[in-house]
Protein backbone atom coordinates (compact mmCIF):
# COMPACT_ATOMS: atom_id res chain seq x y z
CA UNK A 1 0.00 0.00 0.00
CA UNK A 2 1.09 3.57 -0.65
CA UNK A 3 -0.29 6.69 0.90
CA UNK A 4 0.42 10.37 0.97
CA UNK A 5 -1.10 13.58 2.29
CA UNK A 6 -1.27 16.88 0.41
CA UNK A 7 -3.00 20.15 1.18
CA UNK A 8 -5.60 21.25 -1.38
CA UNK A 9 -7.28 24.50 -0.44
CA UNK A 10 -9.16 23.98 2.81
CA UNK A 11 -8.65 20.21 2.77
CA UNK A 12 -5.99 17.70 3.64
CA UNK A 13 -6.23 15.04 0.98
CA UNK A 14 -5.14 11.59 2.15
CA UNK A 15 -4.55 9.45 -0.94
CA UNK A 16 -4.44 5.68 -0.59
CA UNK A 17 -3.29 3.21 -3.22
CA UNK A 18 -3.11 -0.58 -3.33
CA UNK A 19 -4.39 -2.93 -0.66
CA UNK A 20 -5.57 -1.66 2.73
CA UNK A 21 -5.72 -4.51 5.22
CA UNK A 22 -4.96 -5.22 8.86
CA UNK A 23 -1.25 -4.70 8.26
CA UNK A 24 -1.57 -1.25 6.71
CA UNK A 25 -4.73 0.15 8.27
CA UNK A 26 -2.96 1.42 11.45
CA UNK A 27 -0.87 3.68 9.21
CA UNK A 28 -4.00 4.91 7.42
CA UNK A 29 -5.68 5.56 10.77
CA UNK A 30 -2.68 7.53 12.03
CA UNK A 31 -2.55 9.68 8.92
CA UNK A 32 -6.26 10.50 9.03
CA UNK A 33 -6.37 11.19 12.76
CA UNK A 34 -3.25 13.36 12.63
CA UNK A 35 -4.94 15.67 10.14
CA UNK A 36 -8.15 15.83 12.14
CA UNK A 37 -6.34 16.53 15.39
CA UNK A 38 -4.66 19.44 13.59
CA UNK A 39 -8.19 20.69 12.82
CA UNK A 40 -7.90 20.04 9.11
CA UNK A 41 -10.86 19.04 6.96
CA UNK A 42 -10.08 15.66 5.41
CA UNK A 43 -10.82 14.08 2.05
CA UNK A 44 -9.69 10.49 1.55
CA UNK A 45 -8.94 9.65 -2.08
CA UNK A 46 -9.78 5.98 -2.66
CA UNK A 47 -9.46 6.02 -6.46
CA UNK A 48 -6.39 3.76 -6.48
CA UNK A 49 -7.51 1.36 -3.75
CA UNK A 50 -7.57 -2.20 -5.07
CA UNK A 51 -8.66 -3.88 -1.85
CA UNK A 52 -9.92 -2.69 1.51
CA UNK A 53 -11.12 -4.78 4.44
CA UNK A 54 -13.03 -4.04 7.63
CA UNK A 55 -9.94 -2.68 9.38
CA UNK A 56 -9.50 -0.06 6.66
CA UNK A 57 -13.21 0.77 6.74
CA UNK A 58 -12.94 1.12 10.53
CA UNK A 59 -10.28 3.81 10.08
CA UNK A 60 -12.63 5.73 7.80
CA UNK A 61 -15.54 5.40 10.24
CA UNK A 62 -13.37 6.63 13.10
CA UNK A 63 -12.26 9.56 10.98
CA UNK A 64 -15.85 10.48 10.18
CA UNK A 65 -16.84 10.34 13.83
CA UNK A 66 -13.92 12.45 15.02
CA UNK A 67 -14.52 14.98 12.24
CA UNK A 68 -18.15 15.35 13.32
CA UNK A 69 -17.14 15.80 16.94
CA UNK A 70 -14.74 18.61 15.94
CA UNK A 71 -17.07 20.24 13.39
CA UNK A 72 -14.73 19.34 10.55
CA UNK A 73 -15.50 17.99 7.10
CA UNK A 74 -14.69 14.40 6.23
CA UNK A 75 -15.43 12.81 2.88
CA UNK A 76 -14.38 10.19 0.37
CA UNK A 77 -13.42 10.99 -3.22
CA UNK A 78 -13.08 8.88 -6.35
CA UNK A 79 -14.08 5.69 -4.59
CA UNK A 80 -12.80 2.75 -6.64
CA UNK A 81 -15.13 -0.11 -7.51
CA UNK A 82 -13.53 -2.58 -5.07
CA UNK A 83 -13.76 -0.04 -2.24
CA UNK A 84 -17.36 0.85 -3.12
CA UNK A 85 -18.36 -2.81 -3.04
CA UNK A 86 -17.05 -3.10 0.51
CA UNK A 87 -18.72 0.15 1.59
CA UNK A 88 -22.00 -1.17 0.17
CA UNK A 89 -21.54 -4.49 1.93
CA UNK A 90 -21.15 -2.55 5.18
CA UNK A 91 -24.09 -0.31 4.20
CA UNK A 92 -21.85 2.71 4.65
CA UNK A 93 -22.15 4.03 1.11
CA UNK A 94 -24.92 6.39 2.25
CA UNK A 95 -23.19 7.33 5.49
CA UNK A 96 -20.04 8.96 4.12
CA UNK A 97 -20.13 12.09 1.96
CA UNK A 98 -18.83 10.68 -1.34
CA UNK A 99 -17.59 12.79 -4.30
CA UNK A 100 -16.83 11.41 -7.72
CA UNK A 101 -13.51 13.21 -7.90
CA UNK A 102 -11.32 15.63 -6.02
CA UNK A 103 -12.04 18.24 -8.70
CA UNK A 104 -15.79 17.89 -8.22
CA UNK A 105 -15.49 18.50 -4.50
CA UNK A 106 -13.00 21.36 -4.70
CA UNK A 107 -14.82 23.11 -7.57
CA UNK A 108 -18.17 22.90 -5.81
CA UNK A 109 -16.84 25.06 -2.98
CA UNK A 110 -19.44 23.49 -0.68
Amino acid at each position, binding site marked *: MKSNVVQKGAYSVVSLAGEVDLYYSPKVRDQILKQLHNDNNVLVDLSAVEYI*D*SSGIASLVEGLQIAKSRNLEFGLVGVSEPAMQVLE*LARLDKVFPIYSSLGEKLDSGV
Partner: protein
Amino acid sequence: MYKKRLAKFQFKSRSKHLRQMRCSVRNVLQQYGYPGDAIDNIVLALCEACSNVIQHAYGEECSKEMVLEIFHDERRLMFRLRDFATPIDMNCIKSRKLDDLRPGGLGVHFIYQIMDEVAYASCSEGKGNILEMTKQIVPSREAG
Protein backbone atom coordinates in the same frame (compact mmCIF):
# COMPACT_ATOMS: atom_id res chain seq x y z
CA MET B 1 -18.78 -35.12 1.79
CA TYR B 2 -16.52 -32.94 -0.34
CA LYS B 3 -15.02 -34.42 -3.43
CA LYS B 4 -11.67 -32.81 -3.43
CA ARG B 5 -9.30 -30.61 -1.49
CA LEU B 6 -8.12 -27.84 -3.80
CA ALA B 7 -5.46 -26.33 -1.60
CA LYS B 8 -3.92 -26.16 1.84
CA PHE B 9 -2.06 -23.09 3.08
CA GLN B 10 -0.15 -22.87 6.32
CA PHE B 11 1.07 -19.51 7.52
CA LYS B 12 2.09 -17.57 10.61
CA SER B 13 -0.30 -15.26 12.41
CA ARG B 14 1.26 -12.09 11.05
CA SER B 15 -0.90 -9.46 9.39
CA LYS B 16 1.82 -8.87 6.82
CA HIS B 17 1.14 -12.40 5.50
CA LEU B 18 -2.51 -11.64 4.70
CA ARG B 19 -1.66 -10.26 1.28
CA GLN B 20 0.07 -13.48 0.29
CA MET B 21 -2.87 -15.50 1.59
CA ARG B 22 -5.27 -13.46 -0.54
CA CYS B 23 -3.07 -13.87 -3.58
CA SER B 24 -2.78 -17.64 -3.09
CA VAL B 25 -6.53 -18.15 -2.64
CA ARG B 26 -7.29 -15.94 -5.63
CA ASN B 27 -4.91 -17.93 -7.82
CA VAL B 28 -6.44 -21.27 -6.84
CA LEU B 29 -10.02 -20.15 -7.39
CA GLN B 30 -9.15 -18.56 -10.73
CA GLN B 31 -7.35 -21.70 -11.77
CA TYR B 32 -10.50 -23.74 -11.06
CA GLY B 33 -12.67 -21.35 -13.07
CA TYR B 34 -14.68 -19.58 -10.37
CA PRO B 35 -16.09 -16.17 -11.37
CA GLY B 36 -14.04 -13.09 -10.55
CA ASP B 37 -16.68 -11.11 -8.65
CA ALA B 38 -17.39 -14.07 -6.39
CA ILE B 39 -13.66 -14.57 -5.82
CA ASP B 40 -13.34 -10.94 -4.66
CA ASN B 41 -16.01 -11.47 -2.01
CA ILE B 42 -14.67 -14.85 -0.93
CA VAL B 43 -11.17 -13.44 -0.53
CA LEU B 44 -12.57 -10.62 1.60
CA ALA B 45 -14.43 -13.05 3.87
CA LEU B 46 -11.37 -15.29 4.29
CA CYS B 47 -9.14 -12.32 5.03
CA GLU B 48 -11.60 -11.15 7.68
CA ALA B 49 -11.61 -14.60 9.24
CA CYS B 50 -7.80 -14.71 9.31
CA SER B 51 -7.64 -11.17 10.71
CA ASN B 52 -9.98 -12.20 13.52
CA VAL B 53 -7.72 -15.13 14.40
CA ILE B 54 -4.65 -12.87 14.42
CA GLN B 55 -6.29 -10.15 16.48
CA HIS B 56 -8.58 -12.06 18.82
CA ALA B 57 -7.66 -15.76 19.03
CA TYR B 58 -3.90 -15.14 19.10
CA GLY B 59 -4.06 -11.62 20.55
CA GLU B 60 -1.59 -10.29 17.96
CA GLU B 61 1.04 -12.94 18.78
CA CYS B 62 2.76 -13.22 15.42
CA SER B 63 4.52 -16.58 15.54
CA LYS B 64 1.49 -18.86 15.78
CA GLU B 65 0.24 -21.22 13.10
CA MET B 66 -2.87 -20.96 10.97
CA VAL B 67 -4.06 -23.47 8.38
CA LEU B 68 -6.52 -22.69 5.61
CA GLU B 69 -7.91 -25.51 3.47
CA ILE B 70 -10.19 -25.24 0.44
CA PHE B 71 -12.52 -28.08 -0.59
CA HIS B 72 -15.07 -28.28 -3.34
CA ASP B 73 -17.72 -30.45 -4.92
CA GLU B 74 -20.07 -29.91 -7.85
CA ARG B 75 -22.01 -27.07 -6.29
CA ARG B 76 -20.08 -25.53 -3.40
CA LEU B 77 -16.79 -24.45 -1.96
CA MET B 78 -15.89 -25.05 1.65
CA PHE B 79 -13.12 -23.20 3.50
CA ARG B 80 -11.75 -24.55 6.77
CA LEU B 81 -9.62 -22.23 8.89
CA ARG B 82 -7.82 -23.86 11.79
CA ASP B 83 -5.93 -22.10 14.56
CA PHE B 84 -4.14 -23.48 17.60
CA ALA B 85 -5.21 -20.88 20.13
CA THR B 86 -7.11 -21.37 23.36
CA PRO B 87 -10.69 -22.30 22.44
CA ILE B 88 -12.83 -19.21 22.26
CA ASP B 89 -16.40 -18.72 23.43
CA MET B 90 -18.41 -19.03 20.23
CA ASN B 91 -21.19 -16.96 21.76
CA CYS B 92 -18.83 -13.98 21.75
CA ILE B 93 -18.51 -14.01 17.96
CA LYS B 94 -21.16 -11.61 16.80
CA SER B 95 -21.67 -9.11 14.05
CA ARG B 96 -22.51 -5.63 15.23
CA LYS B 97 -25.74 -3.90 14.23
CA LEU B 98 -24.98 -1.89 11.12
CA ASP B 99 -26.93 1.16 12.28
CA ASP B 100 -24.63 1.28 15.32
CA LEU B 101 -22.02 3.39 13.58
CA ARG B 102 -18.65 2.74 15.15
CA PRO B 103 -15.25 1.50 14.04
CA GLY B 104 -14.80 -2.26 14.12
CA GLY B 105 -17.14 -5.22 14.28
CA LEU B 106 -17.69 -5.42 10.54
CA GLY B 107 -15.52 -8.43 9.78
CA VAL B 108 -18.00 -10.99 11.09
CA HIS B 109 -20.79 -9.21 9.22
CA PHE B 110 -18.82 -9.54 5.99
CA ILE B 111 -18.24 -13.26 6.56
CA TYR B 112 -21.94 -13.93 7.16
CA GLN B 113 -22.99 -11.75 4.22
CA ILE B 114 -20.68 -13.47 1.77
CA MET B 115 -20.81 -17.10 2.90
CA ASP B 116 -23.93 -19.28 2.86
CA GLU B 117 -23.02 -21.30 5.94
CA VAL B 118 -20.67 -20.48 8.80
CA ALA B 119 -19.88 -22.94 11.57
CA TYR B 120 -17.46 -22.75 14.48
CA ALA B 121 -16.05 -25.67 16.42
CA SER B 122 -13.40 -26.36 19.00
CA CYS B 123 -10.76 -28.92 18.15
CA SER B 124 -11.23 -32.31 19.74
CA GLU B 125 -7.80 -32.13 21.34
CA GLY B 126 -9.03 -29.10 23.25
CA LYS B 127 -6.60 -26.71 21.67
CA GLY B 128 -7.55 -24.60 18.76
CA ASN B 129 -10.60 -23.52 16.85
CA ILE B 130 -12.04 -24.43 13.48
CA LEU B 131 -14.11 -22.12 11.35
CA GLU B 132 -15.88 -23.69 8.38
CA MET B 133 -17.38 -21.41 5.74
CA THR B 134 -19.42 -22.75 2.83
CA LYS B 135 -20.31 -20.94 -0.38
CA GLN B 136 -22.81 -22.32 -2.88
CA ILE B 137 -21.09 -21.70 -6.19
CA VAL B 138 -20.12 -23.44 -9.39
CA PRO B 139 -17.21 -22.60 -11.68
CA SER B 140 -18.07 -20.35 -14.62
CA ARG B 141 -15.65 -22.20 -16.89
CA GLU B 142 -13.57 -25.35 -17.03
CA ALA B 143 -10.55 -25.43 -14.74
CA GLY B 144 -7.49 -24.07 -16.54
